[in-house]
């Protein structure tokens, strides 16, 4: 029994309010996560259809740490292929994105089509009848590894495992929230933000599921009426580790003014008024009053709506104490110009310089520095000790989705 097994055995399954810090610092556990989680029965987000709109478009991405390339073939079908030559392992695609009928490895020029099938291996028959591959060599047996792919709206997910339940079942009660944004309309990529955070990737997943921290760590939220603890909120948490958090503008006295007048309310901070209040005033484009929403799709993905900023966030684990966060800001191709302009203004709320996101990196790196030796454990008991959000009251002061996340994680790594 190794140290990882001992850790998991000592951590009783009913003990959801304690999270041993060792899970954030143990390098062996990080290796195990690669196999059991990222290459296990989970769905990883790899991109959106708007990134590969045309036949033969490709774009590189990752599933966990494994490099992949998503492609659209000549018939319009989407493939997710491991970006590793079947011959000697070089990356077949080294550009971030592009358009090509053949994907050609630089090392020995093996070339593949957009479905990953091997189409050419130089000197297959040798040179002047000498050497060449053995007679039993079949190109059909040396294609790029192809992952299972499923799509919802314009999102593209992939999994290594045949055991992963269908994507729609995996998303469960969060599916309608995904389809609220990815509703089948054509989307357009406005741009990307990338940040590298010096902490374990799971600290970010906890953060995505942490309704309790929002108005405490991010003073801008409450100060300018975007989110307040008194607003009505909802928490979804699925057994798969998928969760959804969102709150309704106008459901408390303090945010009612914002909703009804369309003007920012700065009552929280006396004497502090925004010169450009449009940064916090949403268009409520989805036919509801949700001002901020965050869907965390275990193990690598989040979708967020912050006023009119729509973003996907991909979590890319790099090492036990380091991950990249890739934000893709989206709009719809039929956006009216004034709504499109709001997406750019509201993009100031998110990303590495976002008014309600920049603090997350500071907090996570601070945790990682403080727990470096992996002793002791976190206390995660706000809103009870269970993992069922149905048992929580209708506000956001809760850590229930974090407890649910750890249940899903433990089921996979144990």
């Amino acid at each position, binding site marked *: 029994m190794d140290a990882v097994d001992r850790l998991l055995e000592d951590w009783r399954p009913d003990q959801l309010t304690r999270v041993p810090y060792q899970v954030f610092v143990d390098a062996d556990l990080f290796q195990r996560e690669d196999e059991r989680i990222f290459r296990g029965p989970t769905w990883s987000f790899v991109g959106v259809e*708007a990134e590969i709109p045309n036949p033969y478009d490709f774009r590189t991405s990752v599933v966990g740490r494994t490099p992949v390339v998503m492609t659209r073939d000549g018939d319009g079908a989407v493939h997710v292929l491991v970006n590793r030559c079947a011959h000697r392992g070089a990356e077949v695609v080294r550009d*971030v*994105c592009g358009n090509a009928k053949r994907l050609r490895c630089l090392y020995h020029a093996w070339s593949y089509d957009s479905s990953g099938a091997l189409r050419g291996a130089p000197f297959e028959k040798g040179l002047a009848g000498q050497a060449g591959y053995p007679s039993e060599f079949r190109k059909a047996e040396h294609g790029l590894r192809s992952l299972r792919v499923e799509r919802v709206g314009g999102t593209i997910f992939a999994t290594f495992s045949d055991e992963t339940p269908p994507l729609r079942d995996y998303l469960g009660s969060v599916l309608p929230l995904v389809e609220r944004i990815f509703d089948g309309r054509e989307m*357009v*990529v*406005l*741009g*990307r*933000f*990338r*940040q*590298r*955070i*010096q902490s374990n990737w799971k600290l970010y997943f906890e953060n995505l599921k942490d309704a309790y921290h929002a108005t405490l*760590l*991010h*003073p*801008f939220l409450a*100060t*300018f009426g975007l989110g307040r603890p008194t607003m009505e909120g909802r928490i979804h948490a699925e057994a798969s580790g998928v969760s959804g958090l969102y709150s309704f503008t106008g459901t408390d006295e303090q945010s009612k003014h914002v909703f009804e007048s369309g003007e920012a309310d700065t009552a929280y*901070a006396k004497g*502090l008024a*925004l*010169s*450009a209040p449009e*940064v916090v005033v949403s268009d409520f484009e989805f036919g509801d009053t949700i001002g901020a929403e965050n869907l965390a799709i275990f193990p690598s993905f989040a979708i967020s709506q912050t006023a009119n900023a729509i973003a996907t966030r991909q979590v890319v684990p790099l090492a036990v104490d380091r991950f*990249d966060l890739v934000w893709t*800001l989206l*709009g719809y*191709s039929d956006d009216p110009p004034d709504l499109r302009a709001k997406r*750019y*203004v509201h*993009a*100031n709320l998110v*990303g*590495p*310089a976002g*008014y309600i*996101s*920049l*603090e*997350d*990196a*500071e907090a996570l*790196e*601070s945790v990682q520095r403080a727990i470096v030796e992996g002793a002791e454990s976190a206390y995660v008991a706000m809103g009870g000790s269970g993992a069922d959000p149905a048992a929580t009251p209708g506000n956001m002061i809760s850590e229930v989705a974090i407890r649910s996340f750890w249940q899903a994680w433990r089921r996979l790594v144990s």
Partner: protein
Amino acid sequence: MNERDVTRMLARYADALHEWRLEDWADFFTDDGRYEIIPRENLEGLADGVTPLGIISCPDRRFIDDRVKAIRKATVYGPQVYRHLFGNVVADELGAGRMAVRANYAVYRTKPPGEAELFSVGKLEATVVDGDPARFASLRFVCDALIPGYIVLPL
């Protein structure tokens, strides 16, 4: 106004940020002055009708003043200082007292007790309006690389 004046203006700009004089930083911009930090990849392969997206985008001075207020009163961050290095500064006359400015930049960030890192590297593009003092009608930082951690103080 000439290239040497622009170089001195960039030095004063960097000093304001280094010393956390954020209100002075905001005063480097005209009323309709635009400030942006844009990742280089957002300038490449844009879809039809899409304008480049900034990590920070302040379409006019009001947004710049709000950024300062937010940093002072509505965000949480750790202590840190920047050190800007500007190079290859080129300023061309546009007429009517305006100059087009290009430069390369590197910003090092130091957090206590004393660890420095290369925080951002890239180029800047600006339009400077002559006056007393000269101000930026636009200032765009195009960063080549990802952001280490987060960005609270503007570049």
